């Protein structure tokens, strides 16, 4: 394979937006084992255009990308390239046709050098000998193209996340490309690191490369895109001209209604004195000197990027991982929890972000799952009270609106949203007065989301207090009374009232320059 620097448009039609599409998808559909995840998607990408695809988690963006780049084969529909039908048997076919995918996750071998990673599987040389020099030179040229300043000899494990992302892009762009698909390329980057990446994408566009850009960062989409295709629940809402499409409008299209109504209306209520105070928390490797206070009746948001230490803070508090605290006070009294059982007994419930791995026994029926964290409470004797358990399940199914095909279903057979509700019911069985919910709506659909938001709201109305950890800024802004933003294991800002905006959250989540400060607008509930 030749190692030309960053993609040269080879299409004679690379005349700019508006010309014949390089790649066109017609009525694509994909089903896994009878479950449709994508249906009736038609879109095209033109040379020199940035075509953004937006949608919520689970809307089908990643599946669409995999269909277009040969990782998956469509169940229905067809792909056209330059007006001729084309079918990919695997990613190699798509690459040969000039389609590159920049993966969302960083898929590099940490133990190998930058050069080795770029050329992995397509090394230069012949007769069993590697032409290391040629590869290193080509890698250097490739890195320069994407503005990455690391040495081609550096070990990938030693370079920063942002540079790894650039290496990954350099790798994807090795060779000749006419279509480059970016699957949420900025998801792992901090605010400062995003701009150089966007510049590279614009440069590619100017060379006539057709770009498909997947993101749920709507401000980026607004900046970059020429056209925007919106997906919702595996279907296409439509393709829109980016001109005049505001982030607010995009969000409404994504959720299918004015998204303000997704969140329950704020109700005036008394937020009283502190119920939980954590001072100087240290979780080795994750959390450095974090202090926070939760008030009675409050919904406190914990924002930040993945890896900011939010989950680890509460796992440490519950004795699930080694941690030390300057002080923990529950209702003003010193407290220490060696296990989630002790925390539950003291009235703290924790809903894990990993419901499949840490929340539910997927192969088990619903009733044993429901009562697992409250066995002593549900069954006062050592023997099980199965009748009582059955009643509790009935009650949970009704009050949390858990939809199931049969009472004998296994937890793993429920949809993500119903699993989340079951998990919520499980934690609530201990009647916690303080509930910590980690990623309350990850991977679940809108209808379930809105039910869970309403549920959280009803909790605090009953006088309970709630901490919501979420990577979805809109969710925190829509739900919380106050937001603490964590970055690299520290609290990097506190927002409340009108100061709770996406740009403020993003700023504190990604930028160290916004040192710990308290930003407060008009008090939302005062």
């Amino acid at each position, binding site marked *: 394979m030749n190692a030309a620097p960053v993609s040269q448009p080879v299409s004679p039609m690379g005349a700019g937006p508006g010309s014949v599409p390089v790649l066109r998808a017609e009525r694509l559909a994909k089903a896994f*084992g009878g479950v449709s995840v994508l249906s009736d998607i038609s879109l095209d990408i033109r040379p020199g255009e940035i075509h953004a695809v937006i949608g919520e988690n689970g809307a089908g963006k990643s599946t669409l990308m995999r269909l277009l780049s040969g990782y998956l084969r469509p169940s229905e529909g067809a792909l056209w390239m330059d007006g001729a039908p084309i079918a990919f048997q695997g990613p190699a076919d798509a690459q040969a046709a000039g389609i590159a995918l920049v993966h969302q996750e960083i898929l590099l071998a940490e133990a190998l050098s930058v050069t080795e990673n770029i050329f992995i599987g397509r090394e230069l040389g012949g007769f069993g000998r590697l032409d290391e020099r040629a590869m290193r030179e080509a890698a250097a040229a490739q890195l320069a193209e994407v503005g990455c300043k690391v040495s081609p000899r550096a070990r990938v494990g030693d370079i920063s996340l942002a540079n790894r992302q650039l290496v990954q892009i350099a790798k994807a762009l090795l060779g000749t490309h006419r279509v480059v698909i970016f699957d949420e390329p900025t998801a792992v980057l901090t605010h400062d690191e995003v701009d150089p990446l966007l510049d590279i994408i614009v440069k590619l566009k100017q060379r006539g490369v057709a770009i498909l850009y997947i993101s749920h960062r709507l401000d980026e989409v607004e900046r970059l895109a020429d056209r925007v295709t919106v997906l919702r629940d595996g279907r296409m809402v439509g393709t829109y001209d980016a001109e005049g499409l505001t982030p607010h409008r995009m969000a409404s299209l994504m959720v299918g209604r004015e998204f303000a109504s997704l969140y329950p209306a704020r109700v005036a209520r008394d937020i009283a004195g502190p119920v939980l105070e954590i001072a100087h928390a240290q979780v080795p490797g994750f959390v450095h000197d974090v202090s926070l206070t939760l008030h009675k009746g409050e919904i406190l948001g914990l924002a930040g990027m993945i890896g900011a230490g939010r989950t680890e803070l509460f796992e440490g508090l519950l004795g699930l991982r080694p941690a030390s605290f300057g002080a923990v006070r529950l209702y003003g009294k010193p407290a220490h929890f060696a296990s*989630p*059982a002790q925390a539950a007994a003291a009235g703290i419930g924790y809903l894990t972000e990993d419901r499949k791995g840490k929340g539910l026994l997927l192969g*088990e029926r619903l009733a044993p799952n429901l009562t697992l964290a409250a066995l*002593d409470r549900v069954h006062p004797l*050592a023997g099980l009270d199965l009748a009582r358990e059955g009643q509790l399940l009935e009650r949970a199914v009704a009050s949390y609106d858990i939809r199931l095909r049969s009472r004998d279903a296994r937890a793993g057979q429920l949809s993500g949203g119903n699993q989340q509700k079951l998990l919520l019911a499980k934690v609530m069985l201990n009647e916690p007065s303080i509930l910590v919910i980690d990623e309350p709506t990850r991977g679940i659909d809108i209808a379930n989301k809105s039910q869970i938001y309403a549920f959280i709201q009803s909790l605090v109305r009953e006088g309970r207090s709630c901490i919501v950890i979420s990577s979805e800024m809109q969710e925190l802004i829509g739900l919380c009374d106050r937001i603490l933003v964590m970055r690299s294991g520290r609290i990097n800002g506190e927002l409340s009232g009108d100061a709770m905006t996406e740009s403020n959250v993003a700023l504190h989540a990604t930028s160290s320059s916004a040192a710990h400060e308290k930003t407060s607008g008009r008090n939302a509930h005062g």
Partner: protein
Amino acid sequence: MADLAAAPPRAEPGWSIGWGDAGPFLALAALIAIGFLVNPDFLSANNIANVVTRSAFIAIIAIGATFVISSGGLDLSVGSMAAFITGVMILFMNWVAPSVGTAAIPLGMAVALVTGIACGLMNGAIVTLGRIEPFIATLGTMGIFRALITYMSDGGTVAIDRSLRDAYRPVYFGDVLGVPIPILVSLAVALVAAYVLYRTRYGRRCVAVGANEDVARYSGISVARVRTMAFVIQGACVAIAAICYVPRLGAATPTTGLLWELQVITAVVIGGTALRGGRGRIWGTVAGAVILEFIANLMVLSDFVSEYLVAAVQGVIIIIAMLIQRMSKR
């Protein structure tokens, strides 16, 4: 996407449960039919009683192993632990017999039980406090128990005192209304075990720990305590089996209980308990133990295969049982 990909039901629940639960019993029925065809003597009441009685001590130990395995552990030390407990018990009874007479027998039983529980506690502590893989931990204690019985018997035998032999005899050879006592004991153990595993908080926790340790931990379950308890139950079961076994053997030797761990684990696995943990089947385990003994009996009664190959056949069975478990997953 992962949500949706994982969501489609793998099998109708009714189907998989029916199979998992009925499988070992169907296999047992098939085996009895085959046995009858091979040698009509096989079905004589005498032979059946004989075989089931002999399967009793493996069944009792395997019931304990069902707890260990469904909690995600494994105990390789059961065979040498049985030999060790037998040795301790006999030595104790012989020691006190001159002063207390036949009262040495119930005292010996109590000592056996305490020893078994202590051995189980040791296994459990090494696994949970020491954070050592159960496979390695019990491989170690297997060697320790085996060496101890060899040491105690000085390489020979630890025989029960003649004065106790006749009084103890009925525990293995006696019967109540025609049902041999070891069968009654194993039924009683199975009943209690089935209640504990299916109908108590401990049983729920045990299976939860085996199914997914993280879920158990996040649900406030003390994984270490549950796991240790499973090993203690195992130790108690080994002790009960040893108590029943003493009259038949009359002595403990360095080869007592050799390769029992193979039979025990095989019985548990063909009984439908998941070797990775998370699912325990007490009655399936009992059926598994009976199946193993029937096969051995069949090999003796027929002339197809040398009875010296019994362990080889058991080895083949456990491998086939694991393959069946694997295939029924997908």
